[in-house]
């Protein structure tokens, strides 16, 4: 059932369109609002006061602010939207919107956990630290229970349905905020010819001009703002964004802007990453609440928020208001609310002598002024019923005034968040009782209220000056002065008032509404020895809620400064960190979702491999590679075993294209390779190749692979798929920075070549069947040689290598011929049982051969001698990268880890990679670890489980026994030489 809008004013509301109703639901009840409303203003229009329960004490809460500062009206969106922790004060109303309160059960009116509020004397600051950390079971047991009681919304379970995107932007000047100062700054820089971006989080330009009767150049301020915006929109060098929050300020003037309603209807949200040569911050100031007993009751509101409700949305947050202030700004606010039809019987001003002109204006409208008085408490739990107005030194005295709204103003806090995020330190301005921007550390300046210049004229002047100064700094000619006329500014005359004494000792006076932190909590923290504002923040959690202390921080600092008997400036602020307001994961991800999270690299053959039914996995360097090719009805394990068997009995074929490939040219390549590999290269004959270990300077394995000499000064080197990037960086660094005198050209050619490896006893006949342009006979084409020849009519570089320990031909052809090669080999291999092979089978075969891999045994400790590859190290050839560290290993001595083989006694037990090894018969409890399993598999060729391991002093333990200490299982195993198949290597050399 749709209800009327009882609190909608008959006239006014600059942002709403009364001609069209919008229906929405809140806590299951259907209501009506208008386009232009926020959820908060529509709720106020419908007389909804109670919108949520508080974080810790489950106290009833109402709407406090009219913008991003809102700590209470944080709601969960239902249905399609499915979004937690949305601020109702900034959420545009739309047809069918459905939202509900958070942190209450069964509902917001009757919340069972509200009992916590009664127990609250037991729950002071640090309660959770003090209580649960020491109890048996500790936080791991109580944490989940406490979290269920606290916390806010529920994380969505489905993917974000919205279309989000990211966009990069470069500009001369970024202006944050489109109030009077920001508009002036943008106008000056735009007229000067600079490329300008101006972003404002509001629905329309104007900032505070939307909320009042201020006139500029003889017309309403909002009209002036719209005129400036129109001029900016007409200029080609300006990008102007509404509903766009400048959320983060990072190094070197990189800023992020979250645009929540882009003009393109197919984009729901956009993240701009803006690099600006200069930044003008014109983000305005936020009104501060006053801290008094029960200042969190629904109906206690910022005076400026009530004004925004009336001016923007024509809604009345209450019928009868008592106002309380410590500065001049509230007088005009009260007068405008009275004008709009809200009864304001009384204004309490904590100051003894407010300006007489204001006093007279108030008297003329029949508002009673109580000087030297404050609101010391309110009556009512789910809604304010009355306010106690008393002198602060006699808080229980004074008068009880019936009202349903308490408007408060504790002064104004410049929004210095972006300034602070830029790395600058804010300074304390004792004249205005607030923190203001300090010295800039990046190319930015602040103008207007965010610079502590409270007043329209000051904003217009400072904005223009910031704009012209930006022009001059960037080399643009500043335009002729243009500051429109307006009324003289009224000084703020704020009198610091961090806390109003309470008439009742146990009453709660909230500093941080979002996290339920009271003034007493701050004092407790101080008494317990927390003196730094950063420590007090973390101990009390003040400023750590969803509003990140936008409302409460300065009051918390003020109360702490009084407790410490220091000036607020000496206490200082906590660091403001990005983002200014929460940013959705959806917009951070943008289009990088699903398949596009990590775009996969494809080889020329990936399509064929997928068609062949391969199981694909994410391999190194962004490639998706086949793990195996199961046939109908075959399990993956069966397929892996069949493929590994086929390679040793017939022939297998796999796509080795992802292997890193580098061409090296130049007279000094041999000398270079001598310095980067552990073995010798200058004696390698043309047409031959060699296996090499490439070490880091610490003597550990960077990569291993084979390199061939194609000509006197022309070499081809292969790197592991995952290591190719590191190898490239390493070699280029050495060539460019360490040995620039070496004449070597290095070119990465990984994706230029398709590499197909045909291996197995039938490899030679398969290749001959496909048509080899030269003899493949062992004497003509020996092991570790490379020949340029045609294969199936395609020009190819064919290498005889031994990746699997079988007779192998690695056929490299230009990638554009890759598919033709694959098809020709498939056809030629059919009569010989050639089977496509995935990475798993090739790893099985490498494990059978005891071939170490950078990814398994290259653990940062094992050196080539430890790995049994001492034959690949030439310590006498001169210096090479890593040599000195190998010498040091030898000098230091001691027990070294060695790579060994393991045969588990249970032939079916395949130990997982990384399983620790212990001495046979070691005690069950915390035995010393003497090594680990580096790779293990079921070997179809050996017919049992086998493993490789890195084992302390492993070579001396060969033929001995150790135990594999798996989870819940001790498996005895025999230590063997790390080779289970063809130890002499006759197969691959044949």
């Amino acid at each position, binding site marked *: 059932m749709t209800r009327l809008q009882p609190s909608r004013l008959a006239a006014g509301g600059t942002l709403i369109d009364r001609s069209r109703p919008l229906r929405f639901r809140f806590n299951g009840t259907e209501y009506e609002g208008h386009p232009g409303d926020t959820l908060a203003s529509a709720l106020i229009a419908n007389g909804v006061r109670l919108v949520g329960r508080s974080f810790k004490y489950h106290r009833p809460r109402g709407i406090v602010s009219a913008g991003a500062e809102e700590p209470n009206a944080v709601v969960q969106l239902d249905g399609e939207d499915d979004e937690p922790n949305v601020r109702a004060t900034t959420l545009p109303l739309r047809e069918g919107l459905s939202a509900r309160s958070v942190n209450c059960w069964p509902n917001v009116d009757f919340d069972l956990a509200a009992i916590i509020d009664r127990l609250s004397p037991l729950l002071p600051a640090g309660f959770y630290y003090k209580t649960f950390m020491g109890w048996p079971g500790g936080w791991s047991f109580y944490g989940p229970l406490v979290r269920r009681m606290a916390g806010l919304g529920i994380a969505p379970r489905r993917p974000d349905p919205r279309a989000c995107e990211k966009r990069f932007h470069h500009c001369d000047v970024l202006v944050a905020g489109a109030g009077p100062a920001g508009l002036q700054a943008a106008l000056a820089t735009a007229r000067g010819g600079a490329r300008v971006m101006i972003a404002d989080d509001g629905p329309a330009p104007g900032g505070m001009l939307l909320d009042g009767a201020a006139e500029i150049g003889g017309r309403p301020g909002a009209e002036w703002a719209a005129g400036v915006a129109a001029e900016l929109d007409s200029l080609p060098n300006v990008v102007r964004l509404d509903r766009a929050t400048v959320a983060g300020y990072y190094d070197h003037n990189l800023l992020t802007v979250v645009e929540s309603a882009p003009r393109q209807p197919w984009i729901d949200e956009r993240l701009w990453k803006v690099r600006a040569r200069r930044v003008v911050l014109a983000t305005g100031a936020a009104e501060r609440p006053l801290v008094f007993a029960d200042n969190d009751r629904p109906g206690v509101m910022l005076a400026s928020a009530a004004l925004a409700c009336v001016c923007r949305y024509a809604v009345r947050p209450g019928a009868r208001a008592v106002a309380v202030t410590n500065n001049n700004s509230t007088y005009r606010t009260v007068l405008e609310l009275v004008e709009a039809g809200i009864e304001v019987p009384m204004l309490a001003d904590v100051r003894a002598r407010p300006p007489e002109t204001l006093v007279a204006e108030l008297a003329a409208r029949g508002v009673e002024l109580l000087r030297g008085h404050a609101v010391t408490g309110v009556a009512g739990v789910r809604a304010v019923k009355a306010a106690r107005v008393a002198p602060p030194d006699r808080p229980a005295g004074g008068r009880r005034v019936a009202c349903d709204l308490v408007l408060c103003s504790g002064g104004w806090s410049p929004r210095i968040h972006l300034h602070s995020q830029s790395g600058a330190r804010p300074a304390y301005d004792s004249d205005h009782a607030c923190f203001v921007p300090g010295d800039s*550390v990046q190319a930015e300046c602040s103008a207007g209220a965010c610079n502590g210049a409270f007043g329209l004229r000051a904003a217009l002047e400072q904005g223009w000056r910031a704009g012209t100064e930006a022009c001059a700094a960037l080399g643009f000619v500043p335009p002729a002065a243009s500051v429109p006329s307006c009324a003289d500014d009224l000084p703020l005359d704020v009198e610091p008032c961090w806390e109003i004494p309470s008439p009742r000792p146990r009453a709660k006076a909230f500093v941080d509404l979002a996290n339920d932190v009271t003034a007493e909590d701050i004092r407790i923290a101080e008494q317990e020895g927390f003196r730094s504002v950063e420590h007090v923040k973390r101990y009390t959690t003040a400023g750590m809620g969803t509003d990140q202390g936008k409302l409460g921080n300065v009051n918390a600092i003020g109360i702490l400064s009084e407790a410490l008997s220091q000036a607020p400036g000496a206490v200082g602020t906590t660091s403001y960190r990005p983002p200014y307001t929460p940013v959705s994961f959806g917009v951070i991800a943008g289009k990088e979702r699903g398949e596009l999270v990590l775009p996969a690299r494809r080889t020329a053959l990936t399509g064929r491999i997928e068609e062949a039914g391969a199981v694909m996995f994410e391999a190194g360097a962004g490639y998706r590679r086949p793990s195996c090719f199961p046939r109908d009805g075959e399990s993956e394990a069966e397929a892996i075993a069949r493929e590994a068997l086929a390679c040793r009995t017939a022939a297998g074929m796999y796509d080795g294209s992802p292997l890193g490939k580098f061409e090296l040219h130049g007279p000094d390549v041999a000398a270079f390779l001598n310095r980067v590999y552990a073995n010798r290269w200058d004696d390698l004959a043309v047409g031959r190749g060699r296996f090499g270990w490439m070490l880091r300077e610490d003597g550990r394995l960077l990569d291993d692979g084979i390199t061939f000499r194609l000509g006197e000064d022309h070499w081809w080197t292969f790197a592991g798929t995952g290591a190719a990037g590191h190898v490239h960086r390493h070699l280029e660094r050495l060539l460019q920075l360490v040995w620039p005198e070496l004449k070597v050209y290095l070119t990465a050619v990984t994706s230029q070549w398709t590499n197909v490896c045909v291996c197995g006893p039938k490899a030679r006949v398969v290749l001959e069947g496909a048509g080899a342009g030269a003899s493949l006979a062992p004497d003509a084409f020996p092991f570790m040689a490379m020949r340029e020849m045609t294969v199936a009519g395609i020009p190819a570089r064919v290498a005889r290598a031994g990746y699997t320990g079988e007779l192998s031909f690695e056929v490299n052809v230009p990638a554009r011929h890759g598919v033709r090669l694959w098809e020709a080999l498939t056809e030629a291999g059919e009569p010989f049982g050639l089977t496509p092979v995935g990475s798993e089978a090739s790893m099985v075969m490498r494990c059978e051969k005891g071939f170490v891999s950078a990814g398994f045994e290259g653990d940062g400790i094992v050196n080539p001698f430890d790995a049994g590859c001492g034959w690949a190290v030439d310590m006498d050839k001169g210096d090479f990268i890593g*040599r000195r*560290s190998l010498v040091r290993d030898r000098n230091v001595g001691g027990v070294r880890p060695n790579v060994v083989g393991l045969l588990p006694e249970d032939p079916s037990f395949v130990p997982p990679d990384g399983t620790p090894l212990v001495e046979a018969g070691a005690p069950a409890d915390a035995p010393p670890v003497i090594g680990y399993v580096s790779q293990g598999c079921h070997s179809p060729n050996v017919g049992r489980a086998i493993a490789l391991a890195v084992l302390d002093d492993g070579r001396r333990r060969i033929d001995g026994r150790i135990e594999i200490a798996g989870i819940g299982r001790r498996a005895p195993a025999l230590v063997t030489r790390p080779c289970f198949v063809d130890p002499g290597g006759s197969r691959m050399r044949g």
Partner: protein
Amino acid sequence: MLVIPCPHCGPRNEDEFVCWSEVVPRPADPAALSDLEWTDYVYNHANPRGWVREQWWHEHGCRRWIIVERNTLTHEVARTEPAPR
């Protein structure tokens, strides 16, 4: 994100680059160093709070190694140089 003025490509975002380490010349004759001197070269860098000269690789650009003078405290980049020839 820093802006690094590549001496070959102009100002580019930090994420085009790989930061390697401080500029520490490789000893001409490692065999002449004691174990202690050698491990000092390999493992112990000054890691200063303030200005540092570093080797960076413009991987997603010209793939040239450059020298970057950077302040670890303020994140200023004072200047960059091509690799010395």
